[in-house]
């Protein structure tokens, strides 16, 4: 789960990481009031779940309260396009209004999971402010890494090694050590999978401050963090994905015209791949899971139906735990409830497949049955293209 920058900063501040003074505003009037409390001059930062905001006009400095209000009026409601949002962009609904700080140096600090090692790793780079992926690609030697022992935790000497490695001096080292360990503790205590401060700045007075922050959480651990779960902003997600998650379905919206309903994540990805292989494009990833109920399947079908891009649907099921007849009943139920507008190609295999085929054939769908994945993909792509 992703959260906004201002929420990430609030969390880091709880673990002793210094952040700029500031507050979030949902309207221009509040933005002006916050700027006034900060003394007039302020930076306004659009809050969306994507980076690269500066490049799209999502970060602006106001010299005084009036300007702050004016900028906020522009920003709130605008569609911000950044390298990370895709061409459609994201609507801005909140702005963070913060004090401005003089910048002497910019550093990158991040904690992420090293999957190969099976442990977190703390990374720093003297080249902050830029995308870490660019640094990793262009100047990998500028990144310093300290793997964290899962049973011993991140040790002070490791934090010191990073701080000295960055060329920090005197009191800066002390501050950096406290920030690095604070960041790591924040990860441990909130089940964050990724936490970045980019940039961590050395302000003119030699004070280290987290100027920007990003934290992503482990969805599987949210059950033990009700406070973090409340930070979810569904405005930042695709509405169909929000609805799917409410039904416990794994659904990701894509750009193609072939709606997919598959059981199992691997098979669902492979189905998308095969559609591409025969010249089509999947409209979505959808894994109805191993134990889907007929109700869930009906909900899934409604979701596919509400995607205006979908021209035809491919059902690809290998019934193991999920019995084919259960899935078929769900589809039939959905067909009864909402009526199915588009042609459906079904490729069914596995437990109770005969019964499943019979139910689908009697459901009043515009249905084509198919025996193999490639054959099914060819048929559905032809149908999607023909409309």
């Amino acid at each position, binding site marked *: 789960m992703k959260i906004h920058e201002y929420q990430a900063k609030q969390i880091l501040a709880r673990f002793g990481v210094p952040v700029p003074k500031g507050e979030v505003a949902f309207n221009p009037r509040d933005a002006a009031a916050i700027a006034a409390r900060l003394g007039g001059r302020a930076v306004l930062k659009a809050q969306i779940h994507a980076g690269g905001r500066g490049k799209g006009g999502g970060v602006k400095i106001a010299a005084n309260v009036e300007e702050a209000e004016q900028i906020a009026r522009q920003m709130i409601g605008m569609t911000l396009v950044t390298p990370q949002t895709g061409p459609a962009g994201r609507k801005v609904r909140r702005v963070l209004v913060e004090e401005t700080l003089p910048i002497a140096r910019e550093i990158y600090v991040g904690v992420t999971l090293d*999957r190969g090692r*099976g442990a977190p790793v703390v990374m720093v780079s003297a080249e902050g402010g830029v995308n870490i992926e660019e640094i990793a690609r262009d100047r990998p030697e500028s990144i310093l890494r300290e793997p964290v022992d899962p049973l011993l935790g991140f040790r002070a000497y490791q934090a010191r090694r990073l701080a000295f490695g960055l060329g920090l001096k005197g009191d800066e080292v002390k501050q950096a050590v406290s920030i690095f360990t604070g960041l790591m503790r924040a990860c441990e205590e909130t089940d964050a999978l990724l936490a970045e401060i980019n940039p961590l700045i050395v302000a003119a007075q030699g004070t280290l401050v987290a100027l920007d922050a990003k934290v992503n959480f482990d969805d599987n651990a949210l059950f033990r963090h009700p406070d973090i779960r409340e930070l979810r902003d569904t405005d930042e997600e695709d509405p169909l994905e929000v609805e799917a998650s409410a039904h416990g379905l794994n659904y990701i919206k894509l750009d193609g015209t072939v709606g997919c309903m598959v059981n199992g*994540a691997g098979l669902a990805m492979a189905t998308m*791949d095969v559609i591409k292989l025969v010249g089509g494009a999947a409209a979505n*990833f959808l894994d109805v899971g191993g134990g889907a109920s007929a109700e869930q399947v009906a909900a899934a079908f409604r979701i596919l139906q509400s995607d205006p891009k979908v021209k035809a649907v491919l059902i690809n099921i290998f019934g193991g735990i999920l019995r084919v007849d259960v899935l078929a009943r769900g589809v039939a139920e959905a067909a009864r409830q909402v009526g199915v507008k588009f042609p459906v190609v079904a490729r069914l295999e596995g437990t109770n497949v005969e019964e499943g085929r019979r139910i689908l054939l009697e459901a009043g769908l515009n249905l084509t049955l198919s025996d193999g994945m490639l054959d099914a993909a060819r048929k559905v792509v032809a149908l999607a293209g023909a409309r």
Partner: protein
Amino acid sequence: MSILVDAKSRVVVQGITGREGTFHARACREYGTAIVAGVTPGRGGMDYEGVPVFHTVREAVEKTGANVSLIFVPPVAAADAILESADAGLPLVVCITEGIPIADMVKVRATLERRGTTRLIGPNSPGLITPGACKIGIMPGYIHKPGPVGVVSRSGTLTYEAVAQLTRRGIGQSTCIGIGGDPISGTSFVDVLRLFQQDPVTEAVVLIGEIGGGSEEEAARFARREMTKPIVSFIAGQTAPPGRRMGHAGAIISGGQGTATEKMKILEDCGVRVVRSPEEIGEAVERALKDTAGKRR
């Protein structure tokens, strides 16, 4: 022969009285697996469809001689269940549970590595099966058939797909293992490839990978270095968008790393036969088996 499990495997099911545990313990037993004990804390002493239930794994092992644990415990308690089995001295633990917090698995894996006495398969795995001998997992048993092909995969249903193709062509399997779809797992592709290479029955291997992480890349390098048996591979997620988790917690392209294209290229460079569509797996294996038979003659 086979790897890790055979007809002598004696299984204790953790979470046997839950919905999933009950259903699959029954299916495993019908397949012929020796389900010798169940564990549900607080329900020790009961008899569950003829299987004695214990409060703790240690007790189950002492009383029944179980040597494999199969875990259906919910995510919140699953890490603890794995550690309990390791502490009871079980050499093999199979964890089906999906949704265990990553931080929990990081600690579990580090602990198991340090002890060095327990192999964990999973989590978020369909389990493993040695066709005709023993099924320890949730896969449909009837699609399998004993034979010379080892199958290792990060996926469930996609593996069934591959197995069904093999069986339809009359090609059986030595052992099929799901290593799981999570970013942190107990057993890697390399671990399983090493076992298949050593197993006298296995003549060829099917490796089904997907986007995310670098375990397919490690497998490719291992294959070039140490495998003499042919490998056929399919990588799912060639069309997956970056930065999104494709169902499995571990299936994510992050920072441009872990793409299917990159994995397929490294596998091919290392001599693995990579197929573009899962439907080509059966045919590619058939060809690989013929090629090796030809070489031997």
